[in-house]
């Protein structure tokens, strides 16, 4: 086992570097990803080492980035696109949802679209508007796309490589508030399959489920709950589409209670979908309805108010208390 401690962003960088080394058809494209190394430095020094025909500083146009990536994939490349911030993905919405997502289907399988679109997403960084959003449900709602979100440096390192190896388009949601904290990366280990969820903390009373940066908040909530005598199990969804319900249902069947937490607005969200499905499939195991803790159904607020908007451990514990009260 080769364990190395590094921040999430460095783990992503290492994963991208590995993918560029392993397959000459992989290329990276995006705004400021070359010399600058990306605004979050995720692609730092990759252009220096692989050249400007494998790490492209593109013109500043998101639809152009994704649309030309589609053409490059038709020419046999495996493009990895970076969208600079979550709120900047929408100019590319047609190219992602109507073009990329449907291309294999429209060609009746005659071609595949091995394209990864990396999107730094989520709040907690005190940034200006359009820089802290969680747009994952737009993409999980779109047939033809796969959507994943790593929550740890180890997953970042492995999942980016698995996403690049996928012959289907993958929306790769990077929880940007997790870019800096360090964690252990097992550079030699075998990866969990890309589309699998995972129990990250064992517990017996309530199952807490979430994805991306929320996993950290769920673990904080679980630690606080433990001090008060409540044992919480925590599941990291990891893959938002397709969803791996196995570990979630296993956990709910043992605890009988579940809380889903996410930064995104709650209405017609990933939490809505998971709550509905868990209630269909684990109905007789449930002691309480599945509860959801979400961002409010408002625009993401100005940064000074993000603490009001974003679910924290206290809001999760409030839901845990409500669940236990049934």
């Amino acid at each position, binding site marked *: 086992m080769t364990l190395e401690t590094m921040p999430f962003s460095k783990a992503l960088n290492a994963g991208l570097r590995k993918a560029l080394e392993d397959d000459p058809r992989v*290329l990276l494209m995006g705004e400021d990803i070359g010399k600058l190394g990306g605004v979050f430095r995720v692609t730092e020094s990759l252009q220096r080492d692989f050249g400007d*025909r494998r790490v492209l500083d*593109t*013109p500043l*146009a998101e*639809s*152009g980035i*994704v*649309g*030309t*990536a*589609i*053409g*490059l*994939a*038709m*020419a*046999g*490349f495996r493009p990895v696109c970076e969208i600079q911030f979550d709120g900047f993905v929408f*100019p590319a919405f*047609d*190219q992602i949802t*109507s*073009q990329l997502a*449907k291309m*294999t*289907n*429209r*060609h*009746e*399988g*005659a*071609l*595949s*679209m091995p394209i990864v679109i990396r999107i730094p997403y989520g709040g907690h960084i005190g940034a200006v508007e359009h820089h802290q959003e969680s747009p994952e449900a737009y993409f999980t709602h779109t*047939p*033809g796309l*796969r959507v994943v979100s790593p929550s740890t440096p180890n997953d970042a390192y492995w999942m980016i490589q698995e996403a690049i190896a*996928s*012959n*289907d388009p993958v929306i790769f949601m990077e929880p940007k508030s997790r870019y800096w904290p360090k964690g252990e990366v097992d550079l030699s280990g075998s990866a969990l399959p890309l*589309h699998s969820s995972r129990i990250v903390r064992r517990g017996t009373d309530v199952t807490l489920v979430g994805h991306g940066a929320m996993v950290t908040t769920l673990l904080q909530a679980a630690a606080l709950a433990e001090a008060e005598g409540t044992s919480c199990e925590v599941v990291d969804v990891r893959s938002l*589409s*397709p*969803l791996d319900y196995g570990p979630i249902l296993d956990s709910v069947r043992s605890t009988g209670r579940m809380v889903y937490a996410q930064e995104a607005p709650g209405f017609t969200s990933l939490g809505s979908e998971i709550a509905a499905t868990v209630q269909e499939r684990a109905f007789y195991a449930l002691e309480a309805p599945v509860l959801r803790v979400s961002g409010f159904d408002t625009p993401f607020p100005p940064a000074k108010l993000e603490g009001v908007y974003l679910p924290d451990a206290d809001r999760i514990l409030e839901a845990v208390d409500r669940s236990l009260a049934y």
Partner: protein
Amino acid sequence: MTTTETSLVRVLEADGSFAPSPASEQYLPLIDALTDAEFEQFYRDMVIIRAIDTQATNLQRQGQLALWPPSRGQEAAQVGSAHAARRQDTIFPSYREHVVTRIRGVDPVDIIKLMRGLSHGGWDPTDPKNGNTRIYTLVLGSQTLHAAGYGMGLAFDGKTGSGDPERDEAVVVYYGDGASSQGDVHEAMVFAASYDAPVLFFLQNNHWAISVPVETQSKVPLVGRGAGYGIPSVRVDGNDVLASYAVSRALLDESRAGLGPRAIEAVTYRMGAHTTSDDPTKYRGSDEEQRWAQRDPIARMRAFLLGRGAGEAFFAGVDAEAADAAEDLRARTVDLPPPGRGAIFDHVYSEPHPLIAEQKAWLEHYEASFEGGTL
């Protein structure tokens, strides 16, 4: 408009007389190099596709198709540019390029599959018989970015720009005056120019985006757009097949030589409706339609060929061939089998997907629950 009229490339007048405009001088050697057999092929292609196009329109009227977007009137722009492309080139059509696709080898019945509601595509662009022709795109202008990206790939792979026109690959992307307002078209020009992609942007200005006239898309001739991106651009009489051929040939070869993208505005006219769902009488006058009927691209080429001594036997032969092609289209259209009900689950992804598998299994089970299950 005076300046653009003088810069318009036209070699055939509406009456078929060979009268090159000043701007066409540099392209004349390409026309001189054409044989009578090639002239006749251009005419044959235009006539046959118009017959097929008319047949498809009729099939829609008779309930056999959901929709048909007629190519009537745009045959010269398409025949000229399609023959200008070389075998190794890749074509990105919009959805009215019935002429181009057939010349590249696509079976018109494959287009029918889209318009009859049997498929979202219709053919495999990677099958050599289809001449590197990508499938139709209905979201206007989105294919221009795919073409730019494909051209970038050709440049990155060294498949273009070697100086050998028989080997160097290039891309032709078709779009219209309406699509020219789409942001994707502008972004495609930016990307193609930035990466010196070998892409010919072929704009067919047919004057109408459904009911909206071209003047609403642009106050000045659309050919001027290219200059803003550093893309040399030429305005051509799109109803003159020889001009369309020569300019397309010249610009494509410049592009494949590594000089970057090129653009053409082919000035033509949509003689029919936008699609079979459209009613042009609500937005344009019959006087305008009659004026353009005088500039019919097929009549123009016919007059030119007559002047070169083509005989009635030739024209009668082409007409018979066209009638046969139209009849063949009808026969094979009505024989097209419906897709299997389970086909909706096919090829949503390239790799196995649990939700799709689950829903497919559910539908099979559901259908089997009826007496004499239908799936």
